[in-house]
């Protein structure tokens, strides 16, 4: 197991390198530099700034500088927020995004699998169709439509919740963003767990358990749950990627200071260093998470576990 983990980790390094390379060159190729504003800079001042950030040297030299700095944990200063370094910005934004993302993921897992499993158990009933249709809504209504509707209902018409802002993570400020982020994932997970549960319920060993007269609840939780959740777990990877993408919209609409927002602002402002920092950071993050998901899957799936024991 451990060997598998380290092998995967090692394999991740070329991936990270390529992510860095591609983003670096992409952002350099783009027209418009970080210092273009309404007022033009006097040419001498422009020259000074260029020299300071190595912008006047050939691109591969700049890349070399960048790699060297990254390996020391220095992502450079933000071009846009001149008094902050990228590391500081990421350190500020990442905890916020992680908290939101994990909460949304947990909510989605809980509600989604519960809904899917129950729907599968009562397959083809009104409940089944009802759950599936509602979960379709989660997939068919984009989050940038859902968010303003939720704000309108819960913050303006009924003033239960705040209409936006992070407020240093106050509980009531988190509710709407987490729900908005979770909704599409609840839908996907409900579908997957429903389909998976249906298959599991047909399998011989479950039918045996039923025929033995074991209580339903016991069968569902002790025997059916694990195999049902396997496909759900393998969906976790794309789910996390989906939540990260969704957070870009959610952070924008609710005004939450997370990484997704930094990224979009950074791209729009040509803040090279900030964008690079966020892309590399997310890349590493996704790789690590996928690794954990793989390990989890391997641990849960008895076939793989047996395989590992054999080797």
């Amino acid at each position, binding site marked *: 197991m451990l060997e598998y983990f380290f092998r995967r980790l090692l394999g991740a390094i070329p991936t990270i390198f390529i992510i860095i390379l591609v983003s670096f060159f992409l952002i350099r190729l783009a027209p418009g530099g970080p210092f273009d504003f309404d*007022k033009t800079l006097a040419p001498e*001042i422009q020259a000074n700034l260029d020299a300071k950030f190595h912008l006047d040297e050939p691109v591969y030299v700049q890349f070399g500088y960048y790699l060297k700095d990254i390996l020391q944990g220095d992502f450079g200063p933000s071009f846009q927020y001149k*008094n902050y370094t990228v590391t500081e910005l990421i350190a500020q934004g990442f905890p916020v995004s992680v908290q939101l993302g994990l909460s949304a993921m947990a909510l989605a897992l809980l509600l989604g699998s519960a809904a899917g499993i129950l729907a599968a158990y009562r397959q083809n009933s009104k409940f089944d169709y009802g759950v599936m249709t509602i979960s379709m809504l989660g997939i068919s209504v984009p989050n940038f439509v859902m968010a303003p509707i939720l704000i309108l209902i819960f913050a303006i018409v009924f003033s239960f919740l705040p*209409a*936006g802002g992070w407020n*240093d993570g106050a509980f009531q400020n988190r509710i709407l963003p987490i729900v908005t982020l979770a909704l599409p994932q609840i839908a996907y997970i409900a579908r997957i767990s429903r389909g998976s549960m249906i298959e599991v319920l047909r399998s011989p060993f479950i039918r045996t358990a039923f025929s033995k007269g074991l209580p339903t609840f016991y069968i569902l939780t002790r025997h059916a749950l694990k195999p049902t959740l396997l496909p759900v777990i393998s969906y976790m990877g794309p789910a996390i990627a989906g939540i990260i993408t969704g957070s870009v919209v959610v952070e924008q609409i609710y*005004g939450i200071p997370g990484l997704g927002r930094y990224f979009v602002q950074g791209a729009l402002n040509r803040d090279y260093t900030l964008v690079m920092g966020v892309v590399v950071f997310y890349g590493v993050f996704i790789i690590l998470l996928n690794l954990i998901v793989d390990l989890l899957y391997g641990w849960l799936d008895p076939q793989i576990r047996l395989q590992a024991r054999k080797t």
Partner: protein
Amino acid sequence: MCEGLGLNDLMPCGKQATMTFTKSALIERLDNETKNMSPLTKQILQLISLCAYILLSSANSHAADVLAPTQVLHRGNGSEPQSLDPHKSEGVPSANIQKDLYEGLVCESPSGELVPGVASSWSVDEKNMRYLFTLRKNAKWSNGDPVTAEDFVYSWRRIVDPKTGSYYAQTLAPVLNAEDIIKGTKKVTSLGIRAIGKYQLEVRLKGPTPYFIGLLTHSSTYPVHKASVEKHGDRFARVGNLIGNGAFALKEWSIQSHILLERNPHYWDNKNTKLDKVYYYPIEDQSSELKRYRAGEIDIVEGIPISQMPWLRKNLKQELRLTPYLGIYYFGYNVTQPPFKDNKKLRQALSMVIDRKVLTEKILRTGELPAYSWVPPNVTNYQHVEYEWKAWPMSRRIKYAKELIKQAGYGKGKPLSVEIRYNTSENHKKIAIVVASMWKKHLGVKTKLHNEEWKVFLANRKTKKHTQVFRSGWIADYNDAFSFAELLHSNHGVNDSGYSNPEYDALLAQSAKEADVDKRRKLLQQAEKILLNDYPVIPIYYYMSKHLVKPYVGGYKDNAMDHHYSKHLYIKAH
């Protein structure tokens, strides 16, 4: 000049006519004055004063605003400021916050009149080229250090120093030797500013500059705390390091979440500051900002989506603040490339055919005024020049334009194909669509709409290689016609049209040397006339500043520069 403004030393910056007082301030004052009395006397006095307070507040309930017990203001502020260093920032969001953190030589009243700031008075010599500022002796930094003339010398040298890399160094161009220093041909110490003692400042100008005092309200002329800058370098403008001389101090800065300012007790006019805390929220999405305003989380909205205007007019009429803003929204022609190069008739035809009235009344619906000149109205000491065809009925304009475009070489057989370029924004998109449809309808012009993201857009505008018609806007840095006129000078950095007329340039140069106000106005009007007749730009409308302000925010007055210092504002009891 102070006398000219009708002020005297006793009036603190921006004092209101209404009486305002807080219970806590009253009690504080009582405490101070009764320090040496016996406890019993103190208590009796406090009781009597409190009764008086209650009687007075009920009697003057319409003249005096009763203040709310918590004085905290929440302001929307558009995009996140990139810096709170006045020499390194640009844009309105930074400027708004810097007005609260720092104070320049000159300040503004709530309605926009120039009042003394750090400088309690000033005078100028007969040639209008040498100013002498007397600084008030009780002005202090937020750590208690006194503000001295040397602080201004240090700060102004810093902004023109090419090593600082400031975008707004040009603001100090009227000061002697400033432009040479910016270019790097002269030493920083040669800047025409020097300290005479601790509280006297002498500034020498390149030429008579009537708008110079107005210029001193601009944030780039604010002083910075020398010891902090020398100790922290570029990182001085951060929480914990930033020392300012304004009414508020920086308490928290959480990027993309909020900036919190707290009262600066060392500010020389602190006793008139009523707010204890001010929150600035960087919310770019205007409809999100509106929602948070409606939910009561924000007290002042910075920008309003125009599509919501009719709804706002119907439902939030009392809170809507629409004021003419010193700025012009226009489309520029790239006159260095075909089809607009050397084709004045074509440019004129396209400009005449746009029905600005329909645009402002039916599409924008915010009360913007259609623009038929280059300089907006309401500029001090100026009367703008307008197109004569402003008064013609649309049908006549269209007929004339059709003739013109035929003479220009285009028409039914050879329709004009043109591209309008604009930066990403719902409002710009709408206007471009409407203009394109008007061109198509009346002149058969095929218009392509090209939307670009801001940075790319700016870069392309500057190079003048790919643009034909581009959208642009210009807000005055100071309240004077020259702020608009200089934009189209052939050397100006933001002259993206490439307009170059030596006659125009000469008139501008002449006006810079003219001390007589009337003569100067005539020169600038002459220049504007030439400019308009050359059609390098299509003026569309004059900006309106649009805000929503909660009814319980007091002290907020509309003004043409849209400057709202937090020290004038307070929360009424509600």
